[in-house]
């Protein structure tokens, strides 16, 4: 009596070819939690909260609408995201991760999606500033009505800085690079270094100057209230530049290694984006 084993169909499981939604979502949860608990991020948040020292003139609200109050939080996000992206290199687990079924781009995507965890915090800061200065409208009337672009630019700046931090970790994997980038960005804002209105000022991903110098119109021309609405054309184009820069930084961070053509294409797109938005803004 011969016994023959029945044929068993073996289906090759290729997890790398599946859509990595669940893994990326799980990684984004972990990376977002680690980002929010990072000491540098917490220090930036504490410094942003120091802007809540209202002197009764709406200064807090102005700082958050102009985006200046978000700058410490954005800098902290850049450094924390940079260090988070360099964690595997620091812990020397890169080779271990290479043995995982998922590609490296899944981990980078998780880190990029983890940046979205900063949105509730940025929104809460904006809401708190609005509540803190709500009485200023009634008493002094100096609080201008924010445009949607002004409400969006602060949280978008934080995510842009975070994406730049992750991209820097990809390009120059050293822990000093993120902090040096912060110093360079802040130094670029020093008066006189980059002339206002120049292409250099447009390239710096900080919207404060654009918002401060944008023309504004009264909300109700018939009355003498201090409500002003900022003109949105230049701001909208600068926000478009922000958004495109964030997407390009994310795309460049996800390009696999040894693909210089991909990097070159992304860099060319970034230059084209900056030039196009600058020309469109006039």
């Amino acid at each position: 009596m011969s016994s023959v084993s029945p044929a068993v169909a073996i289906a090759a499981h290729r997890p790398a070819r599946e859509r990595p939604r669940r893994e990326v979502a799980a990684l984004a949860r972990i990376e977002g939690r680690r980002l929010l608990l990072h000491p540098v991020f917490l220090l930036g948040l504490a410094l942003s909260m120091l802007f809540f020292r209202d002197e009764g003139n709406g200064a807090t609200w102005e700082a958050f609408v102009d985006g200046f109050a978000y700058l410490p939080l954005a800098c902290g996000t850049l450094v924390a995201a940079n260090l988070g992206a360099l964690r595997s290199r620091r812990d020397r687990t890169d080779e271990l991760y290479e043995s995982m079924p998922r590609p490296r781009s899944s981990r980078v995507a998780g880190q990029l999606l983890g940046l979205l965890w900063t949105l509730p915090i940025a929104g809460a800061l904006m809401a708190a500033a609005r509540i803190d200065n709500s009485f200023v409208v009634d008493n002094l009337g100096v609080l201008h009505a924010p445009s949607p672009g002004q409400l969006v630019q602060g949280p978008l700046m934080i995510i842009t800085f975070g994406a730049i931090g992750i991209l820097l970790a990809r390009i120059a994997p050293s822990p000093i690079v993120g902090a040096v980038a912060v110093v360079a960005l802040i130094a670029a804002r020093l008066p006189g270094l980059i002339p206002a209105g120049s292409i250099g000022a447009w390239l710096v991903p900080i919207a404060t100057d654009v918002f401060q110098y944008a023309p504004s119109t009264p909300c109700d021309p018939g009355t003498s209230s201090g409500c002003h609405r900022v003109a949105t054309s230049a701001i909208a184009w600068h926000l478009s530049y922000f958004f495109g820069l964030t997407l390009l930084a994310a795309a460049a961070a996800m390009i696999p290694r040894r693909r210089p053509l991909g990097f070159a294409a992304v860099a060319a797109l970034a230059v084209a984006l900056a030039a196009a938005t600058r020309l469109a803004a006039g």
Partner: protein
Amino acid sequence: MMCRRQCVLLVPSLLRALPRVQLAVGASCAFGLVWLLSAEPDGARAVVALQYAALALSLGVASILEDDAADTVAAVPPSLLFRRVLTIAIVVPAFVVTWAALMSLSAVATSSAPAITLQVGTLVLVTIALGAALTRGGAISGPLVVIAFLGADAFAPDWALAPDLGDWRWDAIWAGLGAGALLALLVVSRDPARRVPRLQAPSREPQREENDRNRVAPRSSRRLLRSRPCRNPATVRADNLTMPQEPA
């Protein structure tokens, strides 16, 4: 003599272990910032340029005390404090030369030079102390100091940005901060294998020692203790067995 011999042996190893890339990047950024910011002929921004250069230098030296082999070399005869002092002593001459070159490049006023030098010394000390205190703190301490300084620049510019030699508070704050950082560095650099004083009440110790001395071992243990000390007890028991003698 012993110390000198240890220094001779340790200096090449410590030189190899220094984060040379970070030091070079920090110094290069410092020179670049000074060159860009102090380009004005009247030297109005020389102080600001030197402060940003100080931040870049702090980032460079943040991880000089990090040692990947810290667990391995923890048991070597030179203490942790000795090794760290030696590392700092290796870096200090290069740092002094770099800072002097930066000051000459920026053409800062002679009256402001001591205050700025005090500030950069304090920033570097705080960065190094923070990096020594935290686990793998070199990556965190530099950004923490940078963002804290820039925040102080925004919220308290009188004390962070504009050094006024006539104002004793400015000097007192930065000198006090530097002294505190140095003290913290000394505290966190104590040898982890140092003798730690016991926290138990001293009155109970003699009684416990007396009890230990008077404790009587069980009979079987006493027999084993009388045997040779390094032998396996099982072997001892096998040796004590008396084999039956063959009749002649």
